[in-house]
């Protein structure tokens, strides 16, 4: 377990942008750690007053995320070694949830079956009424 939670981590926590293991750690810590609760409140207050950080902007705009095509190449392990290593770092050390989700999607794309079709039909039927007529 990571023994530190940085202010950047708290901002990412609010944006649901940390790896799920760390999200769960912070949720658990917030139940008992008063100091951490205050850090969270201060983080929210800073946002309410319009203050934003470089880290938030980097994350929000996914400045270092790889393209979907690059993630596909990463899965096939056909990228240059240093780029392959960087994407591995971004996924596992930085723990980018958006790239992790894209990678999982790419992995499962080949096995999409009836369940996927049913799900998409459900989404369409529940939302099509909101399309402009």
């Amino acid at each position, binding site marked *: 377990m990571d023994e530190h*939670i*940085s202010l950047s981590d708290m901002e990412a926590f609010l944006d649901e942008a940390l790896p799920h293991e760390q999200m769960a750690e912070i949720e658990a810590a917030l139940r008992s750690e008063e100091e951490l609760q205050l*850090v969270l409140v201060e983080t929210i207050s800073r946002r309410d*007053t319009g203050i934003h950080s470089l880290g938030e902007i980097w994350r929000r705009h996914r400045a*270092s995320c790889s393209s979907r095509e690059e993630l596909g190449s990463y899965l096939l392990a056909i990228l240059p070694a240093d780029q392959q290593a960087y994407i591995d770092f971004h996924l596992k050390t930085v723990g980018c949830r958006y790239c*992790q989700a894209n990678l999982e*999607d790419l992995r499962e794309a080949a096995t999409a079956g009836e369940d996927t079709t049913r799900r*998409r039909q459900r989404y369409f039927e529940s939302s099509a009424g909101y399309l402009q007529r």
Partner: protein
Amino acid sequence: MSQPADQSLVERIRAGDGDAWSDLIGRYDSRLLAYVSCRLQNRSLAEDVVQETFIGLLNSLPNYDGRRPLENYLFSICSHKLTDALRREGRRPTVSISPANSAYSHWQLPANSERASSIARSDERRSIEEQSLRDALVEQLEHWRQRGDWKKIQCLELIIVRGWANKRAAEFLQLSQQQVATYKHEFVGRLCKSVRSQGLPEEVFPEMYLDDDPAEGVELSDG
């Protein structure tokens, strides 16, 4: 910038094209579900969150800025819907409007009474600052990518995105602290130059001008 294919889809959806809407769902639903599922162990609930995300997209489409990548916009809506779902499950705290010294449960955090209006920014100013920094960030990172300077990107990502201290980043990446300081100096220098060139005040992002590490993390107890 949004992908051309996404821009075309959005235009057709705005015109009420059901086939385009179906295509968009097919393009994005699996990655959104993957993003949500790791946080919700209940598959049905996770699918509900994605469903709410798509409805949220349609409802907000009149305000969607096509310059923003559609995937980022969808993830943003999805994170809000996911947070709402986690709150309903009692896993995420909500900030109370009660004074800080009142009794509160762990999930009703005290409101901060020091909301300084003097430092409040307008949405417009905030947006200008953000766009300026985003452009500078992307430019710098692309420069390093083109040169294959992956170590520099890793270093700055740990410090700025994850909030790691210089020393910790140096140890993890097997760099000297002097190398980390040099990378940081190069990065901050370029960003500052960009901020100044756009006429923004330097105090906009004070963390860029600090020599020290970013704020140290809050230590968790073992319990």
